């Protein structure tokens, strides 16, 4: 049976009802990967043997009558920058080619403990720097809805694999939109939880104050189920929040009465593609019928978000990526004879152009004489952006808008000019700067058959509200169907 087409909650049900074994499900997904990978190229590694072993262990536990965990038998795949003992952790970079981590990321440990079956790892922009997955040093990943188009990024592999039914759900990471934007472009649900909700331990850092791990799923309920497992305090991460974790599925009842939905006027401008705007507005409008109250809100500093973001994230990245020096792990240039050669040749040969560009930009904005003008200034503007949201959330419970200004674009369309690529994250970035939770869900298809994403932003640690509204949207608009894959 084609279990690969099912959602995680359907698989959990099937396993608990003994309609399917974890091994059958894993085999179904592995078969699907084999069938569509030539067309999608989402995976960097497929762990066939270990996946079947894990599935067999889940089945054995169930056979013994034990609790095999809330995700027993659910096949999951991981973004290439999550540390795993199994396989390699390369961040889609030459500099980490062949690198094997001696430990599992906390999020990975939590999935394993919950009985999930790990299928392998997924392509991404090198070190999560990009919005199209074209910056991967490994391969190009294609959008399952149109092979000429990018899957978005940086978690492009994570979004494409879910959209193509190659895993029940996947993990991505989101620094400026890297979960939500590819989820929008590939037509799946993607959640960036509140900063601190999910431990970052074992997530190879891009920008420490912005990074957050989150799930990409086939529907909203799966997103809630994944969050139930991923969220929680971790003593290994000082920035992990010690706050209670609710059962995220409990608010999925379709009731929108009393919910105030804010529409930021700064998000609905000429920069927004007409088709995207239509779908987003239609979906939001439909919420009114369920009792939601729509209000216009203002986020006056939105136009400064991209500039702020590129200072903060490159500064942090320039330090975070300094450790890749060829001493303890990773690529060391074979011709390096001196200490200086080792650094310069290994880094220059190991990092791709976008990574080098961001390291240089980050080093520049931190270097003596420029700190106040750039880094400090950006952190001050970050405060202003946060205050915009604080004010907006005094009036509304959730903010709705587009995830990406355009649907999936073509390969090479934005690679010539880095700034054009940066601006494709215009709606997703402020959420990271303000440390808020954000979710993207599919809200329609364009005339040319490309998915459109609706973004919901919430108060810190109020993922429940996002899920509740998203679930209602999903019910109202129905699914967008499956991509045209053989």
């Amino acid at each position: 049976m084609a279990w690969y087409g099912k959602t995680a909650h359907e698989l959990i049900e099937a396993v608990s009802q003994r309609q399917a074994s974890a091994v059958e499900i894993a085999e179904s997904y592995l078969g699907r990967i084999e069938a569509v990978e030539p067309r999608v190229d989402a995976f960097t590694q497929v762990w066939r043997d270990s996946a079947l072993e894990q599935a067999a262990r889940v089945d054995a536990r169930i056979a013994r009558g034990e609790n095999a965990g809330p995700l027993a038998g659910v096949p999951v795949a991981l973004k290439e920058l999550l540390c795993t003992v199994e396989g390699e952790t390369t961040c889609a970079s030459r500099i980490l080619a062949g690198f094997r981590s001696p430990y599992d990321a906390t999020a990975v440990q939590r999935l394993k403990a919950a009985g999930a079956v790990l299928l392998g790892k997924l392509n991404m922009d090198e070190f999560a720097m990009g919005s199209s997955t074209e910056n991967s040093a490994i391969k190009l990943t294609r959008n399952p809805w149109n092979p000429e188009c990018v899957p978005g990024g940086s978690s492009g592999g994570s979004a494409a694999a879910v959209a193509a039914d190659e895993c029940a759900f996947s993990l991505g990471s989101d620094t400026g939109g890297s979960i939500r934007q590819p989820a929008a472009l590939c037509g799946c649900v993607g959640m960036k939880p509140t900063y601190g909700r999910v431990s970052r331990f074992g997530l190879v850092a891009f920008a420490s104050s912005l990074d957050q791990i989150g799930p990409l799923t086939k529907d909203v309920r799966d997103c809630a189920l994944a969050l139930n497992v991923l969220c929680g305090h971790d003593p290994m991460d000082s920035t992990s929040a010690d706050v209670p974790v609710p059962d995220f599925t409990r608010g999925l009842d379709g009731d929108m009465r009393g919910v105030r939905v804010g529409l930021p006027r700064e998000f609905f401008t000429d920069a927004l593609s007409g088709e995207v705007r239509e779908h987003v507005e239609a979906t939001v409008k439909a919420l009114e019928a369920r009792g939601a109250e729509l209000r216009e809100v203002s986020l006056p500093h939105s136009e400064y978000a991209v500039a702020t973001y590129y200072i903060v994230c490159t500064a942090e990245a320039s330090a975070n990526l300094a450790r890749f020096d060829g001493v303890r792990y990773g690529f060391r240039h074979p011709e390096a004879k001196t200490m200086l050669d080792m650094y310069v040749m290994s880094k220059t040969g190991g990092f791709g152009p976008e990574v080098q560009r961001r390291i240089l930009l980050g080093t520049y904005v931190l270097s003596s004489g420029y700190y106040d003008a750039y880094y400090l200034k950006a952190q001050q503007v970050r405060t202003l952006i946060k205050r915009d949201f604080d004010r907006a959330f005094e009036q509304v419970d959730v903010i709705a808008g587009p995830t990406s200004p355009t649907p999936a674009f073509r390969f090479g369309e934005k690679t010539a000019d880095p700034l054009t690529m940066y601006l494709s994250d215009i709606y997703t970035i402020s959420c990271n700067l303000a440390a808020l939770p954000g979710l993207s869900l599919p809200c329609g298809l364009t005339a040319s058959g490309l998915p459109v994403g609706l973004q919901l932003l919430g108060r810190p640690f109020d993922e429940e509200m996002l899920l509740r509204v998203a679930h209602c949207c999903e019910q109202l608009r129905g699914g967008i169907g499956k991509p045209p894959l053989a």
Partner: protein
Amino acid sequence: MSQITVEDVEYIAGLAQLEVDAATKARLTEELGKILGYVAKLNELDTRDVPPMMHALEMRNVFREDEAGPSLPRDLALRAAPSHDGQYFIVPRILDTDEV
């Protein structure tokens, strides 16, 4: 915020231990100049009395207790090293006499 020059690019490349050839240097100067030009729009904002947001969360005093736990087995610590002798990570000779 001033315009970035080729000399600036050379200087930061030195700090970042990256090598940029002449052609790349010119391209990078232009690209970074363009990005910094865009970023300069932050100057439109008066931020004199605005505190910087140094941390994403309001948090303080996150500590671990002083308890020693197990370390990595040495073979695992050294496993990913491009060069090691079973005891040490091996690097090209460090010229600086900064050893303590």
